[in-house]
């Protein structure tokens, strides 16, 4: 196995001697079994939590996905029901659409912003901490507060429509039209972009300045450096950020739910709406089958990404 420092290709940075020392050190530590046990003990509670709160419940969900509400075995009937369920199909389509619109947009925008900040040197200067804090503010804003803000902005008689009417344009009930989807996308991007920029900046900070200096000496400009140094070095970071952003995209349900309730406009009717409503109607059979399908899709997505990233 090749040990790769975060965001840096081993072939470019560090050298064989460094990694050889590190490898020896690990071997030396591995021989100290007692220390290893202590380490495992520290890992154990976390693993126990995952086991108790995720793995075991998921196994129960898997079991229930093949059973009726009465407890009798029904084979793949629940999966068939879910696939035939119009609401599930709509929600799955909306969720996929949301992910495929949001993730590229988020990565692109945040990468551009991070690159701009880095090239401007703003992040490294004394005010860097303030910038970092400012970037993280949207991520820290509670969903309930954000929702209040949304209502002020996007209500039929809200701020946005007020501005539109002043410039002679017709407004609309944003959350009750197809525009709701774009409001949701905008909200997701706004909320997450700062966080992702900080992740990118952290990854960029791990790239030694000497590499850029060498490239500059060889006549490479900013654009060339970005594409031939920064981007390749961010390869692993992008994978991590992609996974985090994918998982965060599921959290956007909170905002959609708080603004429009269990039955929003159909353009922002997401998978979590279906699961939420199925739970309210005690449709555990459908919910279990849907959850297993979702788990499979997410796992496949991650595997595809891993494959693409050759991890």
């Amino acid at each position: 196995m090749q040990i790769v420092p975060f965001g840096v290709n081993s072939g470019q940075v560090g050298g064989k001697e460094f990694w050889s020392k590190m490898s020896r050190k690990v071997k030396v530590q591995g021989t100290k079994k007692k220390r290893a046990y202590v380490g495992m003990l520290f890992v154990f509670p976390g693993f126990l939590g995952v086991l108790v709160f995720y793995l075991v419940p998921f196994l129960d969900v898997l079991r229930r996905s093949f059973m009726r509400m009465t407890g009798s075995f029904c084979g793949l009937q629940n999966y068939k029901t879910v696939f035939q369920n119009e609401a599930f199909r709509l929600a799955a389509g909306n969720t996929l659409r949301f992910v495929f619109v949001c993730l590229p947009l988020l990565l692109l925008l945040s990468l551009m912003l991070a690159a701009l900040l880095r090239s401007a040197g703003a992040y490294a200067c004394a005010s860097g901490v303030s910038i970092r804090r400012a970037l993280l503010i949207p991520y820290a804003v509670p969903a309930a507060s954000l929702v209040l803000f949304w209502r002020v902005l996007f209500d039929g008689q809200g701020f946005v429509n007020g501005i539109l009417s002043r410039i002679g344009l017709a407004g609309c009930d944003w959350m009750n039209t197809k525009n709701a989807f774009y409001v949701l996308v905008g909200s997701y991007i706004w909320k997450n972009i700062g966080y992702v920029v900080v992740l990118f900046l952290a990854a960029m900070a791990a790239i030694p300045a000497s590499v850029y200096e060498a490239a500059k000496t060889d006549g490479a400009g900013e654009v060339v450096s970005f594409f031939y140094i920064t981007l390749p070095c961010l390869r692993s970071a992008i994978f991590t950020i992609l996974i985090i952003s994918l998982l965060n995209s599921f959290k956007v349900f909170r905002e959609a739910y708080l603004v429009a309730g269990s039955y929003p406009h159909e353009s922002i009717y997401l998978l979590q709406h279906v699961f939420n409503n199925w739970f309210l109607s005690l449709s555990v059979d459908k919910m279990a089958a849907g959850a297993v399908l979702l788990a499979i899709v997410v796992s496949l997505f991650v595997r595809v990404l891993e494959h693409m990233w050759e991890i």
Partner: protein
Amino acid sequence: MGRKKQKKLTGILLAVALMIGTLAGCGGNGASGDGMFAGGETGGKPNSGNAGGKGRFIESELPLPEGTQTLYAMEKLQDGSVMILGYNREELKYFTAQTSDFNGDWTVQILDWAAESYVAGGAVKNDGTAALLQVSYAGGNVSNEVALIGTDKTVEMLTLAMPENLKEDGCRDIRFDGAGNLLVQTVAGSILRADEATGSCEVYCDLEGGYSGFFGVAGKWIAAVTSPAGIRLFDSADGSPVSEDALLNEMIASDASLTDRNSEYGAGLAFAGGMEENAILYVNYDGVFHHSMGGSVSEQLINGELNSIGDTSANFLQLVMLDEEHIFLALIDGTGTYKILQYTYDKDAPAVPGKELKVYALKDSDYLRHIVSVYQRNHQDVYVNLTIGMSGQDAVTAEDAIRALNTDILAGAGPDVLILDGLPAEDYVEKGILADISPIVEEIAEADGVFENIVFAMKRENGAIYGMPTRFYFHMAGGDADALAAGRTLPGLADYGEQLKADGVAHVFGGETAKRLLNKLYEAGAAGFLAADGTIDESALKDWLSAAKRIYDVDEHTEIEVTGIRDNSVHSTHNMFGILLKESRATIGSLVSANEISTINAVKTQENVDYDVLNGDGQSVFVPYQMVGIVNETALYTEAEAFVRMMLGSEYASVDGNGFPVNRAAYDAICEGAKNQYDEYRSGGIAVSTTEGVSVEADLGNLTEADIGKLTGILESLKTPAPTNAVIRELVIGETEKYLLGQASQEDALASILQKCRLYLSE
């Protein structure tokens, strides 16, 4: 210990700490002391401190003397006996009665005295004397008199000479304090001491300008319950204020409903002296508490959840502690019956009953609490754990509550009995959660008779009944003949309103808020556009939207919702008196009790009005209320059955109000009561006024056979249950409200309702 060992030990300790921290959330929800449970309010398992141990106060009823109609006071006498003061409906006289064996053997003495005006209250002194307060407002002159009853039961009249600044005040309550002073409280809240020889009154407890809703005597203290919520304490010996008791204040502040008391009908709070000099006893709906003054904790002697004390439809009159093992509580229950409950300590009784019957309701209800308390009294071996999903004390929404309930059901820790109002009853039926209770309904039908039309409407094709409303009500239109004719359909009602508006009538339907209006119109008219399977007839929905908008637009609206009122009952929402006050020409709303026919009749004496069913779309719609079902997998099916039988039975369903009982015998009993409610000794009236000072009065009378016949005819004609699906209701009302308020066009509202309902149905 070596450094390595220290490190190892530290590592292990930290690992254990992390593990415990990780699993800390695994604890069962259990029963917390503060009673919070799964997003709702519950008593949890009674927290008696010695749960699983032995010893508890057992409730029994002390039979009152034959013919007792009203109970005014109860007191422990110096010789250890208990004396009461009341009114006997058979003798039509006031009486005192004394008991020493507490088995129902009373020594009754009828008083040779007749009241000349309204008797506002009574009091018994521990030496065996008593007093009745008689108040007259005849001719605009206020007269306060006290009938002093001696130990030989002779009666002497004492006219109270009120202080100069309180001469216009009538008195509303009378008591003897621990020092033997005769105290009266005026309607304005002042607490006065009356000289028993001269009748001269003086302010005894200085409230410093504050208002007291009622007062009680607790040993050597006088406790004045004040507004803003609190309790001010005074020394009986000289009326001087004593320092406030933070815990008592906190209790009052936590439940504003405890601050008012009717001298005849009591309150949710009563006081008594404790066994120790510095202690008092008090009772509220949580139980009976022993409290050392100034202390930070009250000791719960009797848990209200295990007996009738928890019945929030009851009001307490007087609490008496005979000794450490015997406590008496005089109260008037939800049916209007006066009772004395006796609590005797049984050291061998389990502190907590062995069986726990879980009853779940989304919303609280006095009626339900009454049933729970009666069941609890009749089944001392069963603890009824009533869980209220939306207590109103927190921000729990219906969805939150249902989610918590479903979690419990899935975890196998769900309730045994479900009150299905507001719950996804159809989903529960579909998932096999509910048992068929048709055998119980048939049993009740055979024994007492039922409204067959209601039972028929709740039956499935296979004859099963999974949820049965124990009560029901309907929406009515009130007004002149034109209004009643118009009320047969909503568009007709809209036409009627628009015509009056065009004729220059300023107030037609009274100008309710959009939400309140829509709640009524939805229940009355939703059956017209909503099929049983939840599908929506677009054209009918469009007509309903148009009619609702037209009715709403007839009047001007302020859109201010009244909040903060304790709402544990289903209330009549029509306002017939609005017609008398010229605030409306017609009224729409729910009719929930036979008693309301009296008020409608009272209005009829002055205006040519009547009432009839409001038919949304030509349907005869009834609104199911307190719909009960049994969970299929309950381990306590027999107990659950008994509970449902009690809810549907005639004995406890014959309470007027909260809708009409499905039980026919109970309904007949209610009607019989309404026909004989008033006589030459008991009269009733209603006086209402507007903020502009316009006031009207009307006398209430008994119902006639014709009144009963009309009401019964209407109830028997109701065929269609108002849709109970809470999700569709919220979707329709939510979007329609926007339309009514002008925030959305009809097309948008219609499209939005259809789209959202389609989503719901496709799930």
